[in-house]
């Protein structure tokens, strides 16, 4: 496998979505290719950082408004 083929399959590699045989080939390539290794490490770190990104909380007023609108709508729907 060359760098181009490795590059295309890296997300599936990180997501454990590739057959073991292909993973072995990728690992073999990574052992000898510093730049591909850096791309794997930094891509993995990128995904991790976004996984840990804080969730945006609904402001209290927004939540209240939503529930008020829903009550009005359901009352209207049920006639």
């Amino acid at each position, binding site marked *: 496998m060359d760098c181009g083929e490795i590059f295309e399959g890296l997300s599936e590699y990180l997501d454990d979505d590739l057959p073991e045989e292909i993973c072995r080939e990728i690992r073999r390539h990574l052992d000898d290719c*510093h730049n591909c290794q850096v791309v794997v*490490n930094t891509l993995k770190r990128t995904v991790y950082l976004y996984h840990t990104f804080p969730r945006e909380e609904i402001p209290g007023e927004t939540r209240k408004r939503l529930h008020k609108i829903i009550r009005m709508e359901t009352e209207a729907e049920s006639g």
Partner: protein
Amino acid sequence: MNQTVPTDTQLIRQFRAGEISALEDLVYRYEDQVYNLAYRMLRNREDAEDVLQDTFLSVIRALDKFKGKSSFSTWIYRIATNAALTKLRQRSRKLKTEGEFLDEIYSVHKQAHAGATMIDWAANPIESVLNEEARQVMEEAIAELPENYRVVFVLRDVEGLPASDVAEVLDLSVPAVKSRLHRARLFLRNRLSRYYEEGA
């Protein structure tokens, strides 16, 4: 007393039978996900609130037509995603073209091939790379993704949906989801690399 939590299907059945509070329970169950998805797609609280309201109003109006072919969760994500995309398209801000986006992704490939030694910023401890400024860079980077890539990335890597569910929400094949996800991740990686390498 052992009280089990009702499933989405049970709540829908209760609502159809006239129990209004069952709908409120469904809203409580999904409102955070819908708001977070909308905020990550639009990066604006007012727009996220509009999407939140539009989504649940659409849910109420269309609930009669919900046949349960897909899960309720997938159905609500589909409605929320469409509402967020509609909002995004109403904005006049010019997004990157597909060509510009792909050029940027593959610049890293060219860089690696040109023999440049790349910096492994992932070797730094997590606490040293995750600060307020970095979060800002991460948010801005998502906002730069073209919409087709942004929506896949937010559903898969921010909301944590499996690729098969993302495919169902967006009416795409699983390979198409994986391909868009990979490109979105590479783009975001490039943005973060630029930020961390400049600070190195």
